[in-house]
């Protein structure tokens, strides 16, 4: 820096761009590139570029044996003779060489109410993005080669903000850090001139009393009402915030094989990813995959992921196998328990335990392996909705809904079903199951069933 002007050393540009620099006896400096020249004159804020004069914000300056030129020299002079596009972005101190997609990102955060906020992220030039949610942050992945953005893009927000900050997570992705009151979000993407605008509408739990710390309630005091998710953004409150999708099998557990080598583990992962994509894109709900790659996940870990993240729905995806090659059709299965187990679960009851800071509260005790017993009615309701949506889109088995002591469903502490998409052991079905159009039809059916199930749980929703 010299004064307010930023300079770059001509030596550095020479090395970087393979330029030739020659200084004549009169002190003029000639910069050449593939037969084209730029002539700089000491004490003159001008450059002659192939015989055409362009202005510079400051004249070149000598520092010992080195020549320094204003940084604008790159965009105003060098870019005119160089055979690759040069894009100097001073605010972010970035020089883009070539046709790389490096959108400039800006972010704006508005708190609309104690339980709603809006985060707007502009990308210029336009760059599409995909939005996914992990445990404590939302990831915005841009279709770009790099990002031109300050880091952090949004400074840390004071508590109890729903969004606590926005930072660069990797060269092409942002991480939107979420506050503890975060409950859900909806994303919309629009085009404004040369800018792609991504709007994340975030909703949060209402704090019963955020400003006044209260003394611990006496042990006998009634518990405060649970926090409510308020309606926001013109939508009614949703009873579903998180959905767990279980891609059956994985790793060395390949599941069923078709005669031509299709594997159940691959099919379930493909469909699980598509279900996640459609739910996130259209509903903005949080979707957890029990696995997002080809690995063996123990059954208990699959259910634990859903339980620990308080998922509201658990969908396990599988493909079926039969000893008879003609067996055909999709089926939806719910968990089955014997009478003793159901009675044991219902007899679990609540236990009063001390809480941090004094007092106590009732904690409902549910045996891990019997957690599903409390949700069987809702699971069967969801299974019926799935059957309705599969109808006419996915060939169904003669008994499309069944019950079985399914290990992966028994511990799910939320409505849970296992979907058998069809039989890989049936040659015709195997072709169908590995077909894109069929997979999309199945994914759309699952999505539609989830929407309808959500509506049945939402106050004022359609029944």
């Amino acid at each position: 820096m010299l004064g307010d002007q930023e300079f770059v050393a001509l030596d550095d540009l020479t090395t970087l761009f393979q330029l030739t620099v020659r200084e004549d006896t009169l002190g003029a400096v000639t910069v050449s590139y593939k037969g084209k020249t730029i002539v700089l004159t000491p004490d003159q804020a001008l450059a002659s570029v192939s015989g055409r004069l362009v202005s510079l914000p400051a004249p070149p300056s000598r520092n010992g044996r080195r020549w320094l030129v204003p940084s604008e020299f790159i965009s105003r002079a060098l870019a005119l003779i160089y055979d690759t596009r040069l894009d100097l972005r001073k605010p972010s101190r970035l020089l883009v060489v070539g046709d790389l997609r490096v959108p400039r990102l800006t972010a704006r955060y508005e708190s609309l109410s104690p339980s709603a906020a809006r985060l707007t992220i502009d990308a210029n030039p336009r760059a599409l993005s995909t939005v996914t949610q992990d445990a404590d942050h939302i990831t915005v992945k841009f279709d770009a080669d790099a990002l031109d953005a300050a880091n952090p893009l949004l400074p840390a927000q004071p508590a109890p903000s729903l969004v606590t900050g926005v930072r660069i997570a990797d060269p092409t992705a942002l991480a939107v850090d979420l506050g503890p009151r975060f409950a859900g979000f909806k994303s919309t993407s629009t085009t404004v001139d040369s800018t792609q605008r991504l709007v994340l509408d975030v909703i949060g739990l209402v704090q019963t009393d955020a400003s006044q710390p209260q003394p611990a309630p006496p042990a006998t005091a009634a518990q405060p009402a649970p926090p409510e998710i308020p309606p926001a953004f013109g939508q009614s409150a949703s009873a579903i915030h998180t959905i767990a999708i279980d891609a059956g099998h994985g790793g060395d557990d390949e599941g069923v094989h078709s005669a031509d080598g299709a594997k159940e583990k691959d099919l379930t992962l493909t469909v699980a990813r598509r279900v996640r994509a459609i739910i996130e894109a259209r509903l903005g709900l949080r979707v957890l995959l029990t696995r997002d790659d080809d690995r063996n996940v123990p059954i208990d870990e699959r259910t634990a992921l859903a339980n620990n993240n308080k998922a509201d729905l658990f969908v396990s995806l599988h493909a079926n196998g039969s000893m008879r090659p003609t067996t055909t059709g999709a089926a939806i299965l719910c968990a089955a328990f014997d009478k003793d187990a159901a009675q044991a679960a219902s007899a679990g009851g609540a236990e009063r335990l001390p809480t941090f800071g004094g007092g106590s509260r009732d904690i409902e005790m549910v045996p891990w392996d019997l957690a599903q017993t409390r949700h069987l009615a809702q699971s069967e309701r969801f299974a019926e909705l799935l059957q309705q949506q599969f109808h006419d889109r996915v060939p169904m088995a003669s008994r499309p809904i069944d019950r079985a002591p399914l290990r992966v469903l028994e511990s799910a502490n939320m409505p849970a079903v296992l979907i058998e998409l069809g039989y890989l052991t049936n040659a015709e079905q195997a072709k169908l199951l590995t077909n894109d159009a069929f997979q999309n039809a199945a994914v759309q059916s699952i999505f539609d069933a989830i929407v309808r199930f959500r509506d049945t749980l939402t106050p004022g929703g359609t029944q």
Partner: protein
Amino acid sequence: MSTRRLLTITALAIIAIGIVSIVWIRAPRLTSRATPRAAAAPSPTAPAPPGRKIKARLFYVADDGMRLTGVERDIAYGEGATEQAREIVAAQIAPVVEPLVSAVPAGTSVRAVFLTEGGEAYVDLSREVMSAHPGGTLNELLTVYTIVNALTVNLPAVTSVQVLVDGKEVDTLAGHIDLRQPLAKNLSWVQ
């Protein structure tokens, strides 16, 4: 009739009543359950070995592959409930020929069968029941309920069955059906 002769006749009568009682009590347990049932289909399996037989209902994959179907067969008589349970399981997992199809993987053998006073049966199968299993929820369901129903249907004293593999408790055979506790008879998987 002398007193001695009278005593002799009385003793013979008591012995005769005893023999009839033993036959009357034991025979229904071993054979009469099968008597009312007509054979569902001629047995295409190998003829039963010579020796005492009982009738038992065994289970195979139905034609549509969606359920099991019951087939009555003569199987070897076992001395005592535990031995009889073992004979039933051995007959159930024995290889069959078309049109029967077994839901139990070929190569599976029975290692042991244990019964408890509470009516639970523990069937210890060889590792092939897992390693040779083709997978799939339905396949696994039919494998499990083939064993469970074979014992609970044919031996009323058995109310539930737990399948063990190589002497150990297993979570599942192929990733689906919970085998961590005994399972009760379930005829909803039978045609």
